[in-house]
């Protein structure tokens, strides 16, 4: 086994003083306000396929972004060149671009009084993610794949097992007095086995576990076994006829519905009327059992911060908890400073910030509150229906709400899961789907920052044979 050591490609640059200096240079160059963001990160990943190391990657990078305001004009620039010359070009470039933009009365940094950060440790960073020695990391990837392939002789091929670790740091400084930064960490293990049935039909599925702390990552064996179970249950998949039946979304696909809903309540879509939920604030838009919350301060049961947790948002406003839908009533959009101003509302502290460009709207830990039903109880009530385990394609139009996606899953008959189903679509309209949520599971788990329990939705159309 090769030996590896983690030596992130970082020389000792003080990101705080660097960003503060960039802001000062921009002000000196004529900006009325400026905001700088610096990010650095390193990543390690290894994949093992059919027992052999396939790829091994170990690296790091840094970047710096600057947003400048000249009155009500703004522009931005980013660079990976942190030398004095690179920074000079960054400032000059942003200032030159600010001269070609036009006045936008709604642009600008938040007011000084709004800035802040959640106090206390949000448990976003654990140094154990890099604690495994190199050969041990490869071993984790190998174990995940081996555990998957050992489950059943029909599992004869693999897209591999993997182990990943990453750490990152971001610093945000602006000319109105905000300065903050935080570190994050990540570790994960995955497996993706392939199975072949007697007819030569191949299927692949996978599973993964990830966490901010290595100690919270599930064992490679349990990940591999779950991946195997998911691949095997796809075997024998067939089409079903075109029909309308209840659809049950497994948590990993229910999550994507919440993601679509996020786009529909995001301030940028709302002020443009580019959402089926525009102008619906305060109205009953979903089944009364539906409550959706965005909590950017969430700590998981393990004590670690969620993947969507941060002390402040991309504009330096303190993270908060926002109830988006309560008992089916649309209570709040998700807003950054710009979209809030456009709508005459207050920011919900949901600004997202890349290196370049203006801040967007992002969600933190966005979740649908669990109900009381066990998933098997939801299935038990359905004489005939489709349990969806994966979705394909981009057929979600949040302007009209039209929803049409490729689906894979298992057929429900008399409350039981029977044969696998593939090559069908499920279609409906998000506005109706929200109202037609007829059962909510008790199985909410934060595997990623967006999470939902098992959901039953009625009235959708399956298109198949």
């Amino acid at each position: 086994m090769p030996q590896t050591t983690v030596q992130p490609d970082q020389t000792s640059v003080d990101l705080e003083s660097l960003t503060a200096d960039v802001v000062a240079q921009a002000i000196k160059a004529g900006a009325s306000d400026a905001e700088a963001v610096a990010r650095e990160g390193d990543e390690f990943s290894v994949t093992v396929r059919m027992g052999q190391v396939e790829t091994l990657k170990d690296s790091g990078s840094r970047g710096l972004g600057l947003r400048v305001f000249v009155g009500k004009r703004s522009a931005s620039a980013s660079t990976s060149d942190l030398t004095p010359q690179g920074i000079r070009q960054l400032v000059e470039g942003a200032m030159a671009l600010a001269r070609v933009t036009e006045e936008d009365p709604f642009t600008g940094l938040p007011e000084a009084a709004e800035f802040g950060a959640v106090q206390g440790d949000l448990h976003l960073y654990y140094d154990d993610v890099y604690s495994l020695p190199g050969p041990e990391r490869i071993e984790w990837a190998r174990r995940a794949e081996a555990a998957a392939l050992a489950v059943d002789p029909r599992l004869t091929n693999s897209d591999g097992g993997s182990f990943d670790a990453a750490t990152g740091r971001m610093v945000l400084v602006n000319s109105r007095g905000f300065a903050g930064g935080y570190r994050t960490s990540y570790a994960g293990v995955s497996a993706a086995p392939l199975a072949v049935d007697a007819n030569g039909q191949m299927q692949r599925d996978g599973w993964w576990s990830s966490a901010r702390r290595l100690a919270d990552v599930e064992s490679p064996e349990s990940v591999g076994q779950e991946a195997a179970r998911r691949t095997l249950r796809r075997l024998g998949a067939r089409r079903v006829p075109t029909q309308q039946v209840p659809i049950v979304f497994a948590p990993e696909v229910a999550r994507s519905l919440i993601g679509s809903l996020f786009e529909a309540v995001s301030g940028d879509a709302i002020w443009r009327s580019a959402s089926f939920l525009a102008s619906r604030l305060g109205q009953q838009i979903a089944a009364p059992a539906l409550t959706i919350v965005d909590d950017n301060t969430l700590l998981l049961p393990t004590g670690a911060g969620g993947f969507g947790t941060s002390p402040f948002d991309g504009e330096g406003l303190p993270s908060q908890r926002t109830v988006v839908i309560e008992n089916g009533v649309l209570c709040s959009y998700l807003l950054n400073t710009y979209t809030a101003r456009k709508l005459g509302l207050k920011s919900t502290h949901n600004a997202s910030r890349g290196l370049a460009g203006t801040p967007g709207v992002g969600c933190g830990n966005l979740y649908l509150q669990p109900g009381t039903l066990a998933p098997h109880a939801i299935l038990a009530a359905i004489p005939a229906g489709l349990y969806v385990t994966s979705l394909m394609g981009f057929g979600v139009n949040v302007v009209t709400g039209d929803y049409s996606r490729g689906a894979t899953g298992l057929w429900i008959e008399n409350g039981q899961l029977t044969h696998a189903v593939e090559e069908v679509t499920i279609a409906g309209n998000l506005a109706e789907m929200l109202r037609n949520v007829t059962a909510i599971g008790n199985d909410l788990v934060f595997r990623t920052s967006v999470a939902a329990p098992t959901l039953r939705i009625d009235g959708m159309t399956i298109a198949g044979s």
Partner: protein
Amino acid sequence: MTHADSSPVADHKRFFFDKFGITERLLERCLGEALSAGGDYADLYFESVMATSLGVDEQIVKSASQGTSAGCGIRVLSGERTGYAYTDNLSPERLLHAARTAALIASGPAKQPVQGFIETPSAELYPVPLGGYDLDLAARLELILRADRAARAFDARIVQVRAGYSEELRRILVAASDGSFASDTRPLCRLNVYVIAKEGEVTTKGAAGGGGRAGLDQFTGSKSPESLAREAARGAILQLGAVPAPAGEMQVVLGPGWPGILLHEAVGHGLEADFNRKKTSAFAGLIGQPVASPKVTVVDNGTMAGRRGSLNVDDEGSATQETVLIENGVLKGYLSDKLSARLMGMANTGSGRRENYQAIPMPRMTNTYMLAGDDSPEDILRSVKRGLYAVNFGGGQVDITNGKFVFSASEAYLIEDGKITAPVRDATLIGNGPEALKYVSMVGNDLKLDEGIGTCGKDGQSVPVGVGMPTVKLDRMTVGGTGR
């Protein structure tokens, strides 16, 4: 080095040599370090990108941004193994450190890279603009302002217009332990228009875009700001009166151009050599077998001047080419990079691509299209009793293992008794890759390539691609609507 100093390649190379102090000696040292633990092959990929984007929104030039990045990715291959490390600091120390990190994939006695580089002959598929920092911003702003005006003028029901222009200049240099050496300077630009239409309680969207590896003079004709704006506005207005899409299997006619995304999803990905080497593709082992109707011939062509998916050399420094994937319905070949070509004993098709210096190259498509047939588009439509005519699409996706693919129609119409009737709302089409093209019963004489808007994702890496197709009739395909 064996090139003449006056060649364009010399200019590309000099960029990295002059700006970052890279020398031939340093390249050789890094490759030596990369093979210090053995390994079959090593390469260095230098990249420098300069990107600019401008946006008009609500008739205001609201946004302008630029970004610069540079870095080097170092790869070592040992059997089927890949070791990879990258750095955004191009100092000799950091490059050598990255080379040592990538080297750890192998374990054996050091190998010596080939001494002296032999440069890959490079095509000249796109103009290389001078400058980079000193763009004529006014000319670019004019494009988006013209688009904004044209979209607003189209119809009073257009209530929101956003137009964006983005441009990048990507310089690359590849040096490998087998002595291969290549460099390229790649322009890429794109103009996009997004609109929202509103009538009563109904709100719809429309979008259009175009671009390629060419200068501003490409934005004329069907890619003029006015054409793109009208196209976006027309799509949104059309949707105001759309009826639910039908559900179930039916005859489907795909219009020419961008609907070629069908080929990209249904067959293209499944023919990438890495999936077939690992036998994870539904197309594995099907070379020489019929996978489509005899009317179908599909090629991937990276050598088309100015196209979004084209490359003078791929991201491993190999020459790009035209590769026949399906000929008269029979599967002919895969798309390969250096690793898969070596391991499979097949020709390298110059398909090794990567998103950036931080990413490991893999076989990818360039411009993928179906050759024209003999049928007139009118005859094709006339032949359909009841079906769907889909002329514009959003994205698509494929599961390469079971072959199932989807692509989402954003502009489609019912066909009733050979006539185009009502526009329908968005619907996803689904099919099975190795089977879907067997149902092609008519192929139009109107081959068209898309306007230059495609971005393909694989393993988290995005690269620009092109697609194309004539009007095509499929006798059977599943349409994922909600109607009857």
